[in-house]
């Protein structure tokens, strides 16, 4: 496949792996947080870790939109579908996430709620158009990548005068989450989580640009390399991070220049700011309450805001106490540190959100990396 296979080439991978092995200082250890679940997934799916030296470690970040959504917001979505009887349109990944008392959207659907999986916001609009007598709610989740398409749907719904379409907005912001992690006691004071640099998001950066990450490089003195989602992108970015650490630099570098520019997609940014505004606070699963970390629909578009159109009764999230998703999302624990991992919690029967989404760290460990646990070095031979 053109423009894809080139980024999965074994010979090039060997060359980069060779450079990493040579340049990584064996006296040091390197801990890099990949913010995005997309990177976690790519590393496991292509076996990138097998090509890394022993002293390069990855800390999995919270950049999985499904994983960070607090249970209470999922419960709200279930309530919309069940109590308010709407057609709830959702991206597929959200279907199996267990809410309070293990109640997922898939379970609600099995019990008769009208929950439909869509591939885009425009599919949801189409459903609204075809069902004028029904209320249709789009369950909007995701980071900056999925926000512009939601804005487009709201704009279009307004232009076409939809009376039966609204959005349950849960869009969250990457830079706020990274700040929160870097300011957390685990990273700052306790030193439980060692982070020497970041693999910066790829799709998110195509929208917001590389510029917002300058702040971290400067304020927290951590190198950031914006990395594509293909395995060679990840490897090249690791090499760039190692070089920065070795040279004691902390800059924002862009490996993913074929897509990401410094200023990002200005048109998408304008669209987003026309439709959305910052929430003062938002609850993240794992990170807790994070100030100015999420978006809500502006009053000008209140007609399309499901939170204003429907009365929602759910208040607080009730987490399963033994589930380590919150710690895993902060990089404090690895999936294999969780007692539930692989025992009660598997992709077939997920307890926590990190086991559901393909971008979740637990799902990646389980799906692609299980054989590593008893003999961690087996595959490297």
């Amino acid at each position: 496949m053109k423009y894809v296979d080139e980024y999965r080439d074994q010979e090039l991978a060997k060359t980069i792996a060779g450079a990493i092995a040579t340049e990584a200082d064996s006296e040091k250890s390197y801990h890099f947080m990949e913010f995005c679940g997309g990177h976690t997934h790519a590393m496991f799916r292509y076996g990138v870790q097998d090509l890394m030296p022993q002293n390069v470690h990855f800390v999995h970040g919270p950049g999985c939109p499904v994983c960070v959504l607090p249970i209470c917001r999922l419960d709200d979505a279930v309530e919309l579908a069940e109590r308010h009887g709407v057609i709830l349109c959702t991206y597929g990944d959200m279907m199996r996430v267990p809410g309070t008392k293990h109640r997922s959207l898939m379970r609600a659907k099995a019990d008769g709620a009208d929950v439909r999986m869509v591939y885009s916001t425009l599919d949801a609009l189409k459903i609204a158009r075809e069902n004028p007598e029904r209320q249709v709610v789009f369950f909007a989740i995701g980071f900056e990548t999925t926000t512009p398409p939601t804005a487009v749907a709201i704009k279009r719904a307004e232009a076409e005068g939809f009376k039966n379409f609204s959005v349950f907005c849960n869009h969250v912001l990457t830079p706020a989450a990274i700040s929160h992690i870097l300011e957390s006691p685990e990273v700052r004071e306790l030193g439980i989580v060692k982070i020497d640099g970041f693999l910066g998001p790829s799709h998110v950066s195509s929208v917001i640009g590389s510029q917002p990450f300058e702040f971290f490089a400067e304020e927290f003195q951590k190198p950031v390399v914006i990395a594509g989602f293909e395995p060679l992108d990840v490897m090249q970015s690791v090499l760039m991070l190692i070089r920065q650490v070795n040279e004691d630099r902390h800059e924002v570098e862009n490996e993913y220049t074929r897509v990401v520019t410094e200023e990002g997609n200005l048109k998408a940014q304008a669209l987003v700011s026309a439709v959305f505004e910052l929430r003062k606070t938002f609850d993240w699963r794992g990170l807790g309450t994070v100030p100015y970390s999420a978006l809500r629909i502006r009053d000008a578009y209140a007609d399309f805001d499901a939170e204003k159109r429907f009365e929602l009764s759910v208040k607080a999230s009730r987490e399963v106490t033994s589930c380590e998703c919150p710690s895993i999302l902060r990089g404090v624990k690895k999936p294999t540190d969780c007692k539930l991992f692989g025992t009660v919690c598997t992709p077939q029967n997920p307890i926590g959100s990190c086991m559901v989404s393909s971008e979740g760290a637990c799902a990646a460990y389980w799906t692609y990396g299980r054989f590593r646990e008893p003999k961690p070095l087996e595959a490297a031979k």
Partner: protein
Amino acid sequence: MSANDPRLAVTTSSVRGVVDMTHGAGGRAMAELIRDIFQRHLANEFLAQGNDAALLGTVCGRLVMATDAHVISPVFFPGGDIGALAIHGTINDVAMMGARPLWLSASFILEEGFPLAELERIVVSMAFAAREAGVPVVAGDTKVVEKGKGDGVFISTTGVGVLADGTDVSGSNARPGDAILVSGTMGDHGVAILSKRVHLDFETEIISDSQPLHDLVEAMLAAIPGIRVLRDPTRGGLSATLNEIAQQSKVGIVIREAAVPVKPEVAAACELLGLDPLNVANEGKLIVICAAQDAETLLTAIRAHPKGQDAAIIGEVVADQHALVRMKTRLGGMRVVDWIAGEQLPRIC
């Protein structure tokens, strides 16, 4: 072959309108439906007997039997339809024992309101598929359910076949050192279906690989009678089927990503949708496991058959108490190939 195939341009009957409850009530409407659609197109000596059961005659050899229920949306898709699929699916299940399929039965559950013209298209396609495969539908039944209690049409087929002496094909026969082959490209059927699903306006030229494989199996057994395992990787795709074999035989499996044949357009569609071609369904491909020394001969035999031109040796069976299926990635790393959990879902980010 699909219901749109010009070869199916037969004169259709005068049946018009939609299925209603009378079509399942045992009266005149039901008799007409059977006569004008089912008997008319599926006609053969067994159905002509007109009794409650078909008299089949004597068979020499061990019998095998398989059954398969078919529910698919949409019922007509690029490269096939539910009718042809119901024939191919059950023939293939019988063939995966190394057996020669002899007879099929078919039951229909029709939802009130289903257009009779579409039902006829489906039956015409079934009849063509059965005739092409040389396996007659010898018995059948129809029931009608109220509107809202079905999804248009469900078809269950059962197949009976006969096994030659000495053939011993089973999912539990794989041994460490054996070679694993596939008969062609993976994921064609699933992507063809996905591209037509409601609300997924994804236009591709990919057509389903739905086809009967008993003739290919016959050619393979002629070349290597000692074939150990045969499976068709339908739902869950290659991943699920390899995991089934690994568990049944209590062995590990290692495949090479670069060796697994996937059409570029299927790979591209999966890439866009965030799916893994290894998890996507096939309806006209098989996995075969044989002793390592037989692998090249078997590969040549499969490739010599029109249904096996893209065949490849994709990996080997290894000893592994955990019965894991692993894959050497294109990049040079190693990963587990797991069953999918629930449905494959497109990615968000």
